[in-house]
């Protein structure tokens, strides 16, 4: 038996033994943290088992608590988890964004301190990038960190910090050097949120929800050992981390069911049939809607193939091209998907709360509003088009 076949069988066995029944159903995923909240006791068991095994971060090095799996092994793990309907054990910006940057830029000691906690979900991380005066022009940021003995003293304000009201730590871009030239005085600093100098205020969005916060620093402190990479060279880390963020958001453009799976009809087409009805040939009765859905399905499929191709081909313009193209296209596709769903559902997609709207319908409405931020967060579509034109097409400034 090949090694890979052995691995598959072992994985099946391990999952069978360790994945609790409740976690084999669809549902919410926990975010971990110092004071984690679990919607079901099985969630805690599942996180503990997966964290110990390192399979919350399957391809990270074992040395730092990761799973140490190869690409091929990871694929098998994902397939086997999918096969039993296992949901992820942990959702975390530590996994998607900070961890990969730490692995690339942090010292061995820093990795030992932070990465195992990300793998086990012991720390809930949030991201401190944007500021009220620095959105698309991120490098103009002005939150200051000044040396004071073994510490930095931090003063300033961050905005759009995801879930800062729950987070334990923040990875932050701070100015440690002069304001100009703006890219050269930025450092990458990890700051504990649990201190008097840090204040958090949730921002209410058009969806009625508050996934983002304002975060205020007033003489907050962080030990010098929390500075990642070289002082004033944080922009390099910032850019790399943005690529991870953009790749993460890209995935949203893949509408479920539009791929080559056994089920041919996409989720949107099902929805369209449900609300708009069918004709005598079982086609979607609204021909305009049908065309829009088909176009979206075709583009989703082409986009999925493109992400796959770019992952296979290191030569396709490098990670920056891939990430920016994916972020741009994926977020625009996701926005369009909700617009088409709204069109399909008519007024049933426009309820705010209560009767006669079903919870599923109300969720779509809120997700539609949420999706509007997709092409803004993590670099606007326009910024990503700038990156493509300058870095990939080499068009001049």
């Amino acid at each position, binding site marked *: 038996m090949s090694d890979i076949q052995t691995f598959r069988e072992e994985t099946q066995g391990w999952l069978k033994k360790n994945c609790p029944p409740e976690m084999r159903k669809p549902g919410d995923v926990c975010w971990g943290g110092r004071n984690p909240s679990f919607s079901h006791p099985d969630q805690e068991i599942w996180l503990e088992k997966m964290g110990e095994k390192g399979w919350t971060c399957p391809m990270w090095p074992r040395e730092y608590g990761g799973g140490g799996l190869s690409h091929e092994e990871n694929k098998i793990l994902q397939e086997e988890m999918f096969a039993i309907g296992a949901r992820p054990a942990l959702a975390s910006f530590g996994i998607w964004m900070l961890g990969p940057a730490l692995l690339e830029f942090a010292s061995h000691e820093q990795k030992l301190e932070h990465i195992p906690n990300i793998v086990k979900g012991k720390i809930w991380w949030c991201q401190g990038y944007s500021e009220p005066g620095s959105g698309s022009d991120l490098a103009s940021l002005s939150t200051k960190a000044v040396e004071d003995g073994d510490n930095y003293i931090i003063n300033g304000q961050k905005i759009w910090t995801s879930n800062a009201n729950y987070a334990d730590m923040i990875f932050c871009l701070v100015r440690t050097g002069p304001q100009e030239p703006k890219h050269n005085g930025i450092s990458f600093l990890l700051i504990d949120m649990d201190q008097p100098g840090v204040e958090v205020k949730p921002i209410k969005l058009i969806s009625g929800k508050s996934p983002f916060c304002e975060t205020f620093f007033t003489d907050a402190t962080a030990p010098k050992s929390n500075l990642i990479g070289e002082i004033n060279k944080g922009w390099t880390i910032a850019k790399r981390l943005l690529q991870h963020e953009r790749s993460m958001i890209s995935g949203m453009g893949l509408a479920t069911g539009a791929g*080559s799976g056994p089920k041919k009809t996409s989720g949107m*087409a099902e929805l369209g049939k449900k609300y708009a009805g069918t004709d005598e040939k079982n086609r979607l009765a609204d021909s305009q809607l049908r065309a829009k859905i088909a176009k979206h399905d075709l583009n989703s*499929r082409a986009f999925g193939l493109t992400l796959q191709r770019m992952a296979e081909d290191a030569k396709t313009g490098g990670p920056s091209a891939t990430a920016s193209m994916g972020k741009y296209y994926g977020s625009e596709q996701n926005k369009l998907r909700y617009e088409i769903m709204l069109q399909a559902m008519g007024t049933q997609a426009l309820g705010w709360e209560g009767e006669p709207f079903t919870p599923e319908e109300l969720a779509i409405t809120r997700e539609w509003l949420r999706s509007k931020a997709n092409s803004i967060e993590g670099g606007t579509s326009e910024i990503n088009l*700038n990156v*493509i*034109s300058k870095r990939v097409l080499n*068009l*001049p400034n």
Partner: protein
Amino acid sequence: MALLFNEEQQYLKDTAKDFVQKNAPINHFRELRDSKDETGYSKELWKQMAELGWAGVLISEEYGGSDFGMVGMGGILEETGRCLVPSPLFSTALLGASLIELGGKADQKKDLLTKIAKGELTTAFALEEGSRHTPYRISTTAEKKGKNFVLNGKKTFVLDGHSADLIVLAARTSGGIEDQSGISLFLIDPNSTGLQRKRTHMVDSRNASEIHLKDVEVPETKLLGELDAGFSIIEEVLERGQIGISAEMLGNTLEAFDITLEYLKERKQFGAVIGSFQALQHRAAVMFAEIELTKSSVMGALNAVDENSNDRSRFASLAKFKAGETLHLVSSEAVQMHGGVGVTDEFDIGFFLKRSRVAEQIFGSSDYHLDRYATLSEY
């Protein structure tokens, strides 16, 4: 599914690139157009292409081909597409070879595929009858009379129809005008009595013709495939054709985009190169994204044929939809971004606009394939 060329396929494509750039740059096409060349392509060039093995890319080694498959063919078509090379590659090496491979009896295969692989026989596929792609609305009739069939009707938009040595023609042998069954394929000598071909001069200066049939007698031995059962052969050949032409269109797109990018970096207005203007940069970046999606769709579809995927039909529509949309976008933007010179005959960029619209019509437009994809996806 593989989405990258393997080493062999990449080598074939690189060879094609070298050959085309050296022997048939865009000027080659321009000269053929300007001289109103009767054949519409260079026979000498086709001979060289055949010597490189391109005529037999889809033909098995048994008949002298190289059996490189659709991915191999796609790589070559992309490169000939870059330089708008007119040649029998599509009509003969892709369509003709596929029709005979899928429909031919052993002796027909041996005879015809061997000749095609050597570059000694060119073919044309006479299917369409109207101005829009409606593959199964066939009113050309073939009636049995003794040991012959007698054919009457008219075919339109027959690629290479004016110059091919052999015409593969779809005619109705039974059923109503839109029935999928009752269609049969015939191998017809273009010099048959009653057959008249009229070259149609299209906007892309490539090679197409009408074929008029008046009591054309064809021996029953010239039937390709079973009587009344041409549909499944046609369907598979059309899908290969849709995917192949998409690869050629991708090549058209890439070249038009490259030429335009170069122009954006060169042309100065207001004291700056126009490529520094964000209004143009963003449009170029959007085109880049669409081109990447098109590459993946075409590659996926080429592989779907070679891997015998059960989703080949949807892949064919995906490729043709995306190739059509993107070439349409890029060829239009290319002309606009060139400004005044973009609408002059002297600049090559207009060729891509003209070719785009014709290629979009070959075996179904993007709208056609949008509808087809939805139908195949059961909505």
